[in-house]
């Protein structure tokens, strides 16, 4: 059995919205192992993004047990959760969230600067990861000079540059046309093949089908797998 990266048991997430109690997650149990590729599908508002945020140490559950990379998430301070995101996790969002004033290379370099790598190491690592996503020739361009697909590849490069064990992707093709989305899907698949674990939230069944384990959520819960499903 491969290394267990994330273990969630009976997770719940409740919050108040305009006086109403919202149960975003109910009794969610999930394990993510090294090298896995999990896709999560479901209708809007079913809790899949909330689950992703909790697995990514951005949000905290209201109840349940969560272990992130061998550590009890409930005991982590904000600084420790931040460090976890920096060193163990990579995030890719539907919107690319690149810093418009920086070049593609500088955007990718940000996590390395925070991690304290020397300049030469940073430059080597950025070049390596930009080459991996096929944008070695566009490193000096700013986000505004790149297409949507290229911006998403820069965002993926930024998520990968600290060599995370787990990549969390929230609708990474949601703002891209079909052909460009296909390129991103292939990139994710290549990443998985190279050993990075991925948890992917998507509405796109074709993209979800590329995962080694496909989950569906409804009303804050993970549905039991259908017979014959992977």
């Amino acid at each position, binding site marked *: 059995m491969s290394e267990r990266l994330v273990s969630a048991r009976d997770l719940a997430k409740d919050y108040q919205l305009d006086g109403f109690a919202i149960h975003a997650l109910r009794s969610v149990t999930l394990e993510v192992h090294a090298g896995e590729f999990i896709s999560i599908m479901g209708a809007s508002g079913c809790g899949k993004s909330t689950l992703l*945020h909790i697995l990514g140490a*951005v949000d905290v559950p209201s109840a349940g047990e969560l272990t992130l990379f061998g550590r009890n998430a409930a005991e982590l301070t904000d*600084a420790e959760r*931040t460090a976890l*995101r*920096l060193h163990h996790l990579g995030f890719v969002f539907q919107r690319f*969230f690149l810093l418009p004033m920086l070049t593609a290379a500088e955007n990718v370099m940000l*996590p390395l600067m*925070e991690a304290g790598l020397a300049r030469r190491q940073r430059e080597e690592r950025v070049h390596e990861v930009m080459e991996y996503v096929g944008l070695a020739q566009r490193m000096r361009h700013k986000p505004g000079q790149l297409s949507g697909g290229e911006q998403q590849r820069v965002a993926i490069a930024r998520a990968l540059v600290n060599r995370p064990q787990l990549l969390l992707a929230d609708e990474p093709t949601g703002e891209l046309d079909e052909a460009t989305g296909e390129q991103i899907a292939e990139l994710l698949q290549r990443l998985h093949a190279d050993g990075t674990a991925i948890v992917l939230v998507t509405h796109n069944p074709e993209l979800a089908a590329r995962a080694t384990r496909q989950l569906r959520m409804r009303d804050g819960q993970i549905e039991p797998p259908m017979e014959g499903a992977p």
Partner: protein
Amino acid sequence: MRTRRFVALAAGACLLAGLVPPKIAPAAQSSATPAALPDAVLTDRTAARLGVAVGDTVEIAANAALRDAGRFIVGGIYRPHADPFEVGHEQLHVTLHLPDLERLMQVDDRVDRFTAKLSDPAAARRVADEINALRIGVAAYTSQQLADANSSTFVVISQFHKAIGVVSMLAGLVFLIAIMVLKVEEMRRVLGVLRLIGISRRTVLRSVLLIAALVSLLGSVVGIGLAHIAVAIINPASQARYDTDLIFAHITPGIVVLAVGLAIPMGLLAGWLVARRIVHGNPLDQIGR
């Protein structure tokens, strides 16, 4: 060679001799040759006002009725040192030799005040003290002592300027906070992304403070530039308006250091007040989940 008749206040002579101000009075054409007349020195403003030049003849009296006026030849015209007390006053100065002034004022052997210029100005205080210690009925003052005694108006004005400065700084701080609020709100999503990808609160806060410092520094540079433009307009305009060499506005290195030295801490304070709210918020809220 012209002979002119005037009525004007000769305050310079009055100051020199400490006497009642004489008058430069109207007079009839004289038969005396200019070379035989005593000379008087006029300020350039006086000369311009009276329309005389060096070599011209003027008649000066010690009373408004212009009785017993004396005739003088204009021996020189000079530009007096600028004096803030005289700004806006239309005083016309004339300087006479002491015997001529005494004769004009019809008083003999009487001097209330005179100025002595020392070869070593640094010894002024000591010399004044030594004269005063003699107790011969003479009081000696240094120029600095007189300046201090007469500058109370300027002390008040200076305090007034400081008060305006404090109010301006407070207004500037509010303005800086407003700019930083707008700037940070504009960057809210960027800061949220930074937090999501694992950039620490400290780094994010430092980045915002750096931006605040740069905004303040830029504001200082722009402010100093505007001040220089204002000085370039105010000084010539005021000097022309009051016919003086006085410098009305002056930007010293000390003022520049003070402006930058206050602006940057104020900018940092404004940045910190705004940024601490952002960095302690949930990054998901900041990116607009």
